[in-house]
């Protein structure tokens, strides 16, 4: 049961309607940042208040919610947000990507491909891709309106010229639907290609910065690059130590004070499913040998 003192989803119905209107506008103009009347939530700014407001505005009693932080369902902030919605809505929660109708995420996209009807809600700290190049909101809005995006490539150029490669490892800027440049939130570069023509609806909420944006299902999302320096994702020279997957984003775990390290899937649900299906990694056997 939900907490009787509060409305379903914490926000009052008027506020939820306002947020849904902003979401509709965002879906209609993929990649465009829609200003919205973000409210103070009972969780601090920076903890995912944008994502929480988006989820609160779209969630219904029949929904099944999954919350991940850094790919994991059991990190403290993911637990805290999941508990918040259980308390305020009383709907079902899950750790399984396949079972969820809404997945709220911080910093990862699940490894398992999403399907039509699912909604991925991203928590966004800084929504403006032009922010580090131009601090003024009045100017960046104009640059978006007029598609003055040359400066984005200046940064990529500078990275390649001085460092040999693009030095942006996460929150990699993308062009959405051939029109707006967008920040995908601090997901690793590894996840960026998953946004492209994804079957799920992708919604982005930035609470402190008061912006909502969206990528509708099956929309083009293209990372910025040069023809002769194409976009490339991170790779690892070994598979997951727990499930043996060779195509996932791996967390590096320091396991002892001699610098011993293990590499395991960041997506805990995906890793568990593989292990349940009988897949096994070397469990860090190589680690013992290296010592």
């Amino acid at each position: 049961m939900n907490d009787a003192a509060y409305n379903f989803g914490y926000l009052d119905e008027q506020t939820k309607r306002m947020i849904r209107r902003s979401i509709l506008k965002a879906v209609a103009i993929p990649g465009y940042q829609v200003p919205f009347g973000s409210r103070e939530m009972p969780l601090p700014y920076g903890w995912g208040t944008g994502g929480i407001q988006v989820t609160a505005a779209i969630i219904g009693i029949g929904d099944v919610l999954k919350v991940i932080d850094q790919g994991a369902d059991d990190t403290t902030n993911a637990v805290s947000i999941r508990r918040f919605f259980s308390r305020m809505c009383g709907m079902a929660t899950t750790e399984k990507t396949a079972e969820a109708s809404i997945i709220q995420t911080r910093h990862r996209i699940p490894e398992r491909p999403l399907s039509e009807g699912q909604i991925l809600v991203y928590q966004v700290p800084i929504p403006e891709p032009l922010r580090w190049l131009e601090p003024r909101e009045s100017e960046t809005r104009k640059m978006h309106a007029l598609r003055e995006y040359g400066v984005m490539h200046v940064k990529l150029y500078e990275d390649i010229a001085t460092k040999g490669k693009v030095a942006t490892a996460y929150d990699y800027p993308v062009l959405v639907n051939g029109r707006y440049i967008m920040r995908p939130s601090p997901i690793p570069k590894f996840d960026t290609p998953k946004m492209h023509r994804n079957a799920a609806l992708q919604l982005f909420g930035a609470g402190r910065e008061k912006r909502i944006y969206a990528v509708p299902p099956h929309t083009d999302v293209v990372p910025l690059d040069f023809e002769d320096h194409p976009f490339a994702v991170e790779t690892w020279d070994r598979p997951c130590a727990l499930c043996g997957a060779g195509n996932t984003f791996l967390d590096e775990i320091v396991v002892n004070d001699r610098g011993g390290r293990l590499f395991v899937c960041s997506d805990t649900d995906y890793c568990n499913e593989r292990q349940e299906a009988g897949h096994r990694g070397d469990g860090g056997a190589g680690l013992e040998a290296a010592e």
Partner: protein
Amino acid sequence: MTDAPILRVDGLGKAYGRRIACRDICFDLWPGEVLAVVGESGSGKTTLLNCLGGLIAADAGTVRYTRRGGGEIDLATAGEAERRAILRAEWGFVRQNPRDGLRFGVSAGANVGEPLMAIGSRHFGKIRSTASEWLEAVEIDAHRIDDLPSGFSGGMQQRLQIARNLVTHPSIVLMDEPTGGLDVSVQAKLLDLIRRLVRENGVSAIVVTHDLGVARLLADRMLVMKEGEVVESGLTDQLLDDPQAAYTQLLVSSVLTV
């Protein structure tokens, strides 16, 4: 030169409150022509240039520009999106202070490459080699392509700005006191370079200067401004050798007596 002006300015005016900065400015600019706008500080010449360059909005008048693909557009009344797109793709603006015209936080190569990227170049190698060629063209050692402009001398910064503005082969380049603040010997070299590049690339230019020497060296024609109005205009040599307006006579004589 073809038989139609590339730019036709008519009745341009700008006031700040009750102070009139520019009043009823009319002139034509022809393809390949260099026009100097001279006058002392406060005469309105920089306001005129900033109105043309889209930095400030004029209050009155038209600025009809013939686009590269043909067709005339009044920049004074065009929408901001269209105006900024044209200025970006077909115009250049060399500012008096290199800090206003360059990005000091990124390398010389990025400064020259940015206009190319802004109009759609997406091949790193080609952008870099074009930038390198242009650095050579403005007499900056191509080895300095990855250096920051802050480490450059004033003259080099100004040459870098010129490279950045010419790299897209614009139709019109605006220059605001391009040699201001430089040593006399550096000025002379820079003027030679500007004259050569403007001729070689066939661009039209409007150069604002308080220095009649700069006008004599660079310009085909001149406008003399005083208190926001054009007091005299004509071919540079004629105007300097035989000034008609009293103010121009004063300007010319004061230069000669120095």
